[in-house]
């Protein structure tokens, strides 16, 4: 188990540990978070739980800026956490930062 001391930012992994199109599940202080790398190298993080039936978004298909929940195919923006119509809702979003190829989560 890794631990870091930074109060505000937690280093979660190296940028190369993230694979485009394959989200990564990270558990920080017991909270499950899905981390996405887009094809433009941008990193986004959302709570790993679909507002519909709590499906793990880290297991969804990622297309561009959207992830599709593996349970019932809800479409959710990884940039904003907003659920696409006709479904409704919003997923908690976490700020991320990439410094020196290290990915940080802002808590």
């Amino acid at each position, binding site marked *: *188990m*890794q*631990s*870091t*001391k930074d*109060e505000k930012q*937690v280093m*979660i*992994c190296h940028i190369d*540990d993230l*694979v*485009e*199109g*394959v989200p*990564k*599940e*990270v*558990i*920080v*202080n017991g909270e499950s978070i899905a981390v996405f790398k887009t*094809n433009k190298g941008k990193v986004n993080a959302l709570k790993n739980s679909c507002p519909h*039936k*709590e*499906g*793990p978004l880290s*297991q*969804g*298909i*990622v*297309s*561009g800026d*959207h992830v*599709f929940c*593996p*349970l019932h*195919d809800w*479409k959710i923006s990884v940039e904003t956490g907003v659920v696409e119509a*006709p479904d*409704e809702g919003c997923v908690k979003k976490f700020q991320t930062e990439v410094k020196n190829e290290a990915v940080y989560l802002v*808590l």
Partner: protein
Amino acid sequence: MEKERLVLIGNGMAGIRTIEEILKRDPNRFQITVFGKEPHPNYNRIALSSVLQGDSSVDDIILNDYEWYEKNGIELYTGDPVVKVDKRRKKIHSKNGIVCEYDHLIFATGSNPFMLPLPGADKEGVIAFRDIKDCETMIETSKHYKKAAVIGGGLLGLEAARGLLNLNMETEVIHIFDYLMERQLDAPASDMLRRDLEEQGMRFHMNKQTEMIKGHDRVEGLKFKDGSFLEADLVVMAVGIKPNIELASDTGLKTERAIVVNDFMETSAKDIYAVGECAEHNGIAYGLVAPLYEQGKVLADHICSKETEGYHGSLMYTKLKVSGVDLFSAGQFQDEEDTRAIRVHDEFEGIYKKVVVKDNKVVGSVLYGDTSDSPRLLDMMKKGQDISNMNKAVILPSEDENSSGESPVVSMADDEQICDCNGVCKGEIVEAINNDGLSTVADITKHTNAGRSCGGCKPLVSDLLSATLGDEAVSNQKEPMCGCTDLSHDEVSEAIKEKQLSFTREVMNVLGWESEEGCSKCRPAINYYLGLNKPEEYEDDHTSRFINERVHANIQNDGTYSVVPRMYGGVTDPDQLRKIADTADKYEVPMLKVTGGQRIDMLGVNKEDLPSIWKDLGMNSGYAYAKSIRTVKTCVGEDFCRFGTQDSIGMGIQIEKKFERLNTPHKVKMAVSACPRNCAESGIKDIGIVGVEGAWEMYVGGNGGVDLRGGDLFCKVETGEELLDTMSAFLQYYREDARYLERTSHWVERVGLDHIRSVVLDDDEKRKQLIENMERALRARPKDPWTEVSENEAKQKELYEKKQLEVVQ
């Protein structure tokens, strides 16, 4: 800046529609609070009759659920009417003691049913027909009592009566006049209506006036002025409504029959407005939905400080919502001295049409039995079109014998309204169909609001859908693959073959995808078609696969996975069972279950444990998660069974080993039984084999799932080798010809069994080619994925690792 406070009194259709219109114009300007007397969110009062008639449930008619209020930041108090308005301090008081300040106050208090002040009207079993509670009372009463009497032969009364008939009650309708619905129908139409309803089982007492309601605590009957008596266990009063203006007059607003408003829905007091049934504009209080919605729009414009021409009254028209009766009435339908009428009256067909004309303009109409011309007539009336040069066929297109019978929507102009309740024009719907790729009436309702209230326009919307997309498009379901493209599955797979495309991205690029990276519908499909076209060269794109296929296990509702090891033909041995038992113990697998395909399912496994479980099991993947060959289920067969004619187990294992791990458009389930008793259920499999004396029968297209379908006998062959060849050719043709995610049952229905036979059985050349293609595909299959992953650490890290971090404070 602080938001302006807007308070709405009345949580009904008119008030909430006004709020919707306001939110459309200026979503963040107001802090909105709504008070309603009924304990429900806004529902479709017009549809109450369909609840009573059993066509909808109460949930179905909710227009705005609680989530909608929450999402729009609207504070809602249900079951809590406003009891006092303090104009000077701009405050309202609710029954439950809530005090709320306002900058703008809207009265949308609607109407109350008019209860005749008859002696005995307070007895148990005497109700109105106005809200959900009345419906529930009628439904409940029908369980214990038989005889219902409806006082009032108008629109509302007849809808209630029809509902009571559906609830299996003997239904008597008492009407004070000679004709039913005399405010909407002339004598001939009214007579036809009465005859039709009598046929449905309603009994009428015309020209009768009720004197008193008899009974002890509960109603027992009605006594009429002429001295006659009618037994009844339930009395529904449906003689009319009266605007609910008690609060308004207590507040000191100017009222006549209803709250008097000007063209901007302003009442006599500053910052107080009224809409809907409780408002009276130019001497008229409307009780129909379309005018209420028109008023809502004007008020929304006005309150949001948008320019508006104001409200100038509405055209009144009615459709009766009673099953089996088609009726439309609008405007001035009675003959007067200065009017002339076009009449069509066919007593054999039960059709009556009357169009009333004054000064060369249509001013009113009654249609009975065939109301297809109603949108056109309404439009002519609204526009005040001059008809002096029109012939009958133009005014009543349904009477044109030479017409092709095409729907009236075809000849409608783009600005003609289809949904009068919600004011949706033809043009808006066509635009939504084209721009948003809509293909069902439900989608159109969701996008445009058309058909959301009374539902009367749904047939027209459906016609318009066909007219816009073409009949064939709608009936053949030439649906685009997904929202990213207009191309169908067939077109995409054809293009991949023809242009020899090799990558997902390339396909989207070359075929002009609208979204750069596709979606969860098109990507798995493209990945499949690419692999089908070049089985040896194409490298599978695992990011385009659904999670189950990406991690080779089945995701469950709680995010855990299930593991189903391969057991060929459903045959296992002590060694396998021991390994499964030991592994289940070691990883504390919550449940072991025998599946429908004769396998063992280990349920509730954590994703990060998958690779090590597979390693410990030392068994191959059963592919229970994939669009591929699943299982071959077998019966005991000739080895042990008294009736077995063939070695079903041996054949099943041989088939499963030959085709395992093969990608298919959708899952393929198979079975081999050794006699027609069919213990392996071969009749409901994608391919089901039945052994008979000296031969095998092959059934195809069976399905035991959502669309239950018995398999069709495809052929009968004598040898195992011939059977395997035929299965190869059939499966390969399915792989090449079916659309991704199309089960064999749907594919067989779509292309026809004879066609498949002509390719797979009759055409030697094609059959040979199919078998060859299958062999190529089988050679290019991946190795067992479980073994591969449990030996590949990089893959484990990419797909199965879950990173645990703890922040030290």
